[in-house]
């Protein structure tokens, strides 16, 4: 059973566009929600993360929107660039099991110049 459901599977936007990636979860024990960026041949790298007590967090061109009641969160990439083309994973941490993270299935983003 997929603990964190991510959509869409792939996304193509023009340079300067704002791709949005969505994730949903059911486990209310999740207490920390990071987003990772992964390039081919590399491990995931942390982009930005949020805790459920805030509704939005911005870091540079990346924004997380968090809706605790709906158990949904999303990543927005402002002014997207071709260099942002990568696979993005949302994740959630289960406080009950310590530092175990559950990852979504990933979104392949392509930014066209």
């Amino acid at each position, binding site marked *: 059973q997929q603990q*964190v459901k*991510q959509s869409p599977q792939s996304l193509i936007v023009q340079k300067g566009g704002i791709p949005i990636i969505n994730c949903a979860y059911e486990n209310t024990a999740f*207490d*920390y929600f*990071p987003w*990772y960026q992964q390039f081919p*041949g*590399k*491990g*995931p*790298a*942390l982009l930005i*993360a949020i*805790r459920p007590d805030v509704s939005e967090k911005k870091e540079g061109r990346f924004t997380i929107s968090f809706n605790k009641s709906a158990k949904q969160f999303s990543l927005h990439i402002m002014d997207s660039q071709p260099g942002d083309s990568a696979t993005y*994973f949302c*994740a959630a*941490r289960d*406080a009950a*099991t*310590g*530092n*175990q*993270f*559950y*990852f*979504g*299935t*990933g979104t392949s983003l392509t930014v066209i110049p």
Partner: protein
Amino acid sequence: DAGVTQSPTHLIKTRGQHVTLRCSPISGHKSVSWYQQVLGQGPQFIFQYYEKEERGRGNFPDRFSARQFPNYSSELNVNALLLGDSALYLCASSPSAGAGEKLFFGSGTQLSVL
């Protein structure tokens, strides 16, 4: 500073063999976690070790085992390899085992089981 280093980068094994994957965490990081990433999927948690003790275990069979050494490096062992074990194995380190810690991933070991 060096990031998380994993070895080997690629490995080809046949069914029934065993494999040992190695990980060196970022200097000063005491926690190491292992994840399995099947092609087209997100990473799946296998183990977390902190101060040489297992702190968490994911839903993997007993064929999977790991350990952490006094210098905080770690090994992941997989016995009786199956075709389905073919995946990218990622090691991640963090400063401690505490709440909200960032995970720093290595580039992984690509294991192919034939």
